């Protein structure tokens, strides 16, 4: 029985819009360091591969064309890279994967930030890259126009704006990786005899020229412990499979059925081979939203109560599963037959469902021989069995 990879998505009080109103939630603490360190500690006790930390450059909104003006949902959040860094010294094994918007930020800054996250976590950093299609986010930067693209209904894949922004994500990741490689691992020589601190033959200009930016390099930060931190991309459909296949180490796909799972795995794999990637296997995780309980009825009751508080049934971009950890384990193993390497779970209420994952689902999967019983690696790449990438600039 092959083992599954498990990630948990951290978002506010949880992914259900009414999560913050759950009696177990601590809605006043969402901006405190203690809140995040405790969540990640729980996830690490559950031996999870990684946590993702959601982020965005605008106030949360349920609309994509404008702020939604809602006052009944969690609003306001902290920078995810800084949150991950704050948590890093308090943990030892779990991977830390903050989200970052690449549409309005500088690849040079993000490259060194994530390299540094890799240093402060001694090899556990990743990054989830996301494009921003939101015009109101663009207005926070005032540098470029982004016009509204509807999320649902219309096929946005062929929209020139989408093609352009996704192409920019691929360029951006290329720059991140080149910057991470711009120092060879042994560039720092501290040669007292010649007085040289570094061997400048081992530092490299990356000279990237793209449509939206050019970057000269080298990085100011030496190559991080993992060589290249893990790049993760969420991929909802074919246009995003192309980004994930070309640029990411781990793709997170959003199937609603076994068939969709199979199609997504194949879609990402096809893009990966089209890009002639030679850096080992890519991993594909399925994304699922979960409400868990000791019995099916309890889980469904919890969901019903949350839906009632939210004023509408929870509908989201991924499948919602309300059930017992055993039922969830069944589903995870069933869909794994489509070729998924594991899952990212989005707990409805972090305070409750994360614990159900670590003390219910994980032991159940362990009983079935489908999940690790101890960490066997100390780096995030190590959890995925991924090699430390060779440096593209190093002379062989």
């Amino acid at each position: 029985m092959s083992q599954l990879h498990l990630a948990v998505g951290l978002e506010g009080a949880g992914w259900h819009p009414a999560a913050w109103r759950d009696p177990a939630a601590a809605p006043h603490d969402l901006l405190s360091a203690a809140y995040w360190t405790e969540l990640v500690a729980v996830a690490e006790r559950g031996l999870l591969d990684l946590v993702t930390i959601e982020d965005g450059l605008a106030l949360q909104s349920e609309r994509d064309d404008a702020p939604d003006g809602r006052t009944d949902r969690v609003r306001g959040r902290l920078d995810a890279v800084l949150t991950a860094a704050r948590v890093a010294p308090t943990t030892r094994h779990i991977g830390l994967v903050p989200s970052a918007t690449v549409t309005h930020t500088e690849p040079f800054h993000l490259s060194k930030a994530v390299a540094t996250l890799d240093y402060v976590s001694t090899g556990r950093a990743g990054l989830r890259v996301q494009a921003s299609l939101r015009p109101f986010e663009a207005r926070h930067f005032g540098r470029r126009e982004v016009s509204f693209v509807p999320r649902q209904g219309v096929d946005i894949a062929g929209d020139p704006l989408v093609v352009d922004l996704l192409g920019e994500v691929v360029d951006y990741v290329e720059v991140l990786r080149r910057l991470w490689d711009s120092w060879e691992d042994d560039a720092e020589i501290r040669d007292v005899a010649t007085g040289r601190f570094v061997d400048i033959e081992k530092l490299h200009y990356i000279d990237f020229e793209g449509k939206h930016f050019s970057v000269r390099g080298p990085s100011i930060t030496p190559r991080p412990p993992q060589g290249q931190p893990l790049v993760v991309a969420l991929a909802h459909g074919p246009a995003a499979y192309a980004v994930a296949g070309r640029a990411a180490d781990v793709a997170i796909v959003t199937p609603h059925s076994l068939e969709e799972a199979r199609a997504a795995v194949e879609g990402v794999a096809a893009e990966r081979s089209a890009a002639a990637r030679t850096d080992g296997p890519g991993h594909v995780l399925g994304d699922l939203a979960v409400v868990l309980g000791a019995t099916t009825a309890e889980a469904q009751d919890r969901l019903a109560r949350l839906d009632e508080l939210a004023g509408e049934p929870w509908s989201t971009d991924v499948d919602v599963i309300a059930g017992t950890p055993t039922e969830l384990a069944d589903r995870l193993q069933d869909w794994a037959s489509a070729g998924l390497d594991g899952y990212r779970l989005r707990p409805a209420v972090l305070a409750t469902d994360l614990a159900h994952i670590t003390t219910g689902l994980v032991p159940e999967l362990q009983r079935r021989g489908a999940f690790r019983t101890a960490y066997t690696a100390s780096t995030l790449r190590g959890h995925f069995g991924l090699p430390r990438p060779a440096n593209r600039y190093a002379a062989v």
Partner: protein
Amino acid sequence: MPKQIHLAAHFPGVNNTTVWSDPRGGSHIEFSSFVHFAQTAERAKFDFLFLAEGLRLREQAGKIYDLDVVGRPDTFTVLSALAAVTEQLGLTGTINSTFNEPYEVARQFASLDHLSAGRAAWNVVTSWDAFTGENFRRGGFLPQDQRYARAKEFLTTAFELFDSWKGDEIAADAGSGQFVSRPDVGAFSHEGPQFSISGQFNVPRSPQGRPVIFQAGDSEEGREFAASTADAIFSRHSEFEAGRAFYTDVKDRLATYGRSRDSLLILPAATFVLGDTDAEAQEIAHQVRLQQVSGQTAIRFLEQLWNRDLSAYDPDGPLPDIDPDTGDDHIAKGRASVRMNRDPVAVAREWRALATEKGLSIRELIIEVTGRQSFVGSPRTVADEIDRFVQADASDGFILVPHVTPGGLDGFADTVVPLLQEKGVYRTEYEGTTLREHLGLAALGNAVPVG
């Protein structure tokens, strides 16, 4: 009560003072070095830890400069991680206003302030030029005056963002279902020559309201900028008379902006060398200078003023008799230039006269004219000197830069700090928890008007 001294620690990254060849020298990148350094600073009850920044590897004559420490981690990320291993130490990061955008930087500082429970500070710098710009979307070159125009508007805009949340918007009332009190929380709109942005800021008001603001420029524009807006200056004037002149100059400017003299702290960078006796410390200081200025380093430094290739010169020989090239700076890139705001030919003439008078070789001359150790002596001597500077208004305290990473602060914490405490000029316990409190600055409370 005598004036109380403020002390802070600068983690010495890329600079020309770190003696990386010292056997006690460790990594300047590994997090364990930062932990050691920060925990020593906190043990010594320092106000804050300070990080400098440079966004491109320095070059000389078209090659990466390899004689000093090269490479450093990302400022925000290290500071946030340090918040996990310290409890009260302030965390000051140098962040450039030329190659960043206000929304993003304000978000990062507000986040750092939350994650550190009120310990964040921002040293706003405007350097450097098109050379650094080659690493950024923004690219391009901003002349000196426009860099400050951008810096000022950047800071004003960042303040508008920090102040867009007043601090009472989060109700998080599960019963009524009201999370925020108004639909337009964090609303802002800024129209100016540099930035034209609007929307809603997405980090609620942080413990300090805003990070503490540092400024490090030295020009007329830089001083005015500091007097109008900063909470503290990281100054390069660590000598007694120069320090007093700078102190008076900047503090006198405050009145124009309706500010009191204690609303802006002057904190020069300072180095130190300790010994059991003053004589021993002097001898160690001499050795440190020889390690800091090798023959090669001396030639490269001279090239920066001369703006010419001087590699054929003997560092143990006399100064070149040709004059500096007064054309555009082309030798050194990405560093504070020795030529900045000075006439290179006049400086060269001064240096030649000094070398002749004292019989100095190139290397000896460079050792003579580049920063000497600020405080050298037994712990008692150093404690007395620091106290003398502060009581005489040559500064409000110092940002100490040890020459060994990361253990260079340990001796100071163990020997000088207790003496300052005995004198009653230095805290024995933190009185507050935020950096603003450590610095004795007025709390902002909820939003105050943009200054």
